[in-house]
């Protein structure tokens, strides 16, 4: 919320009548979190982690990247729906994450825009 300073009773009349300027807060979404992975790996591990390279057929639509089919362990998985997507920066690299549904199952796959490689990160329960 915007920070504001204390007022004295005498100032109140002046502050309540006319418009009052608000201040930018110094809030940054990143600052809410411990940015570095914590030493015990809390919140970063996943028991369903796969972390394997995959091949992906992708549609580039405007500025959007839409994975359509991924190939993992000699099997093709047709993506019926991208339920969510987000990005994360690791130093100079950006990783694009997609949670994708094949109908019965849900997977998290990711694209590293520096290494130009796709991975299956995990099976989402």
């Amino acid at each position, binding site marked *: 919320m915007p920070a504001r300073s204390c007022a004295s009773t005498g100032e109140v009349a002046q502050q*309540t009548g006319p*418009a009052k300027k608000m201040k930018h807060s110094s809030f940054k979404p*990143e600052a809410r*979190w411990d940015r570095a992975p914590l030493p015990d*790996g809390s919140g970063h591990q996943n028991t369903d982690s796969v972390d394997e390279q995959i091949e992906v057929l992708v549609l580039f639509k405007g500025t959007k990247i839409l994975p359509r089919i991924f190939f993992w362990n000699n099997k093709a998985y047709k993506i019926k729906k991208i339920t969510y997507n987000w990005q994360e920066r690791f130093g100079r690299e950006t990783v694009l994450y997609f949670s994708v549904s094949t109908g019965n199952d849900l997977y998290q796959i990711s694209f590293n825009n520096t290494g130009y490689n796709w991975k299956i990160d995990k099976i989402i329960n």
Partner: protein
Amino acid sequence: MILHVDMDAFFASIEQAINPRLKNKPLIVGSRNSRMHTVVCAASYEAKRAGIDSGMSSAEAFKICPNLEFVPAEQSKYIWTSRQIFKLLKEFGFEVLYASIDEFQIDIRDTQNPGLLAEEIRRKIRAEFSITASIGIAKNWLLAKLGSKLNKPDGVTVITEGNLESVLGCFPASKICGVGKNTAAVLEGLGVKTCLDLYFKSAQFLEQNLGKYGLNLYVSLHSIDTFDGVGEPDEPKSIGHSYTLSRAIQNPQFIMAWIRALSEMVASRLRQDNWEASTVHLWINGPEIGNFRAQKAFQQPVSDGHEIYQRCLKIMAKFSPKIPLVRALGVSCSGLAKSAYQQPLFREQKRRGDLLKALDNINSRYGDNSIYPAIVQLAQ
């Protein structure tokens, strides 16, 4: 007019959007992976209805609702979504401010139909992210924020001079941001029960009974806010990190490793914004000691994790020669001033400065925590 956007159960809603199986189910997002040894970061509305809310221990939440779904928090999703919503709101052509990771404020000036604008914002957020937001609109940020809470989830409340009495009269004063349990009890003792009762109290009355806070509350409730010539962001007063361990631990190496890890996180943020801090604070919580807080001001300001760590150890040694049983701990720095470059007098100081620069460059290029002090490994 200020329009306040408050995302509904933000982290939990994102997890439900990612995994449709979790929709309409009681769900908690835990701050760490261990489902029975963590704290609830966010709860879905289904979980909230069962009496679960943020800040509760997960063990307690599972006791209330054994069929609760659990997902560990993954910060990148929430940060990215927050940034995207901020961008989306900017596209409406008004000035937007961050209030928190899941709250945004917009100065919509004298927009003719603010309710329609709110509907359009909600529609776009839902279409783009499959999550919902509640919106409050009023003459100032405090009433707008209150409005966003009155019709949750997925609702809009416009507070105007015309409906102010009927809206504020229906809700307890504790609904207003900043009126906590203690203040609400004081107000109740004074006969101030509803938001409307509070609204109609004079500045003198509130100052007499609540001090400066009461006066600020009065100003915030009655002002007409605008972003015109919005000022620069407030400079932070302190920078800190804290962490709750999965259980109470007494192992000195482990505790010291954690203090070092937190010191490094704080130092990294200090250096990133070119701050130096003269005061170091240490907070330790444990079953035997309760909350131990101590701080010490030093003549020489710092932005080096090792130095902050050493100062924390000095603070702790004064408190007790023996490491207590620790459940949670935090390190923070205040007395911040912009770092003024001075040619180091001693060779060792220059070497240390060069080393920090090199470490920062490596972490900036390859990602946070690519390189860190070996002692931090002991916290694993």
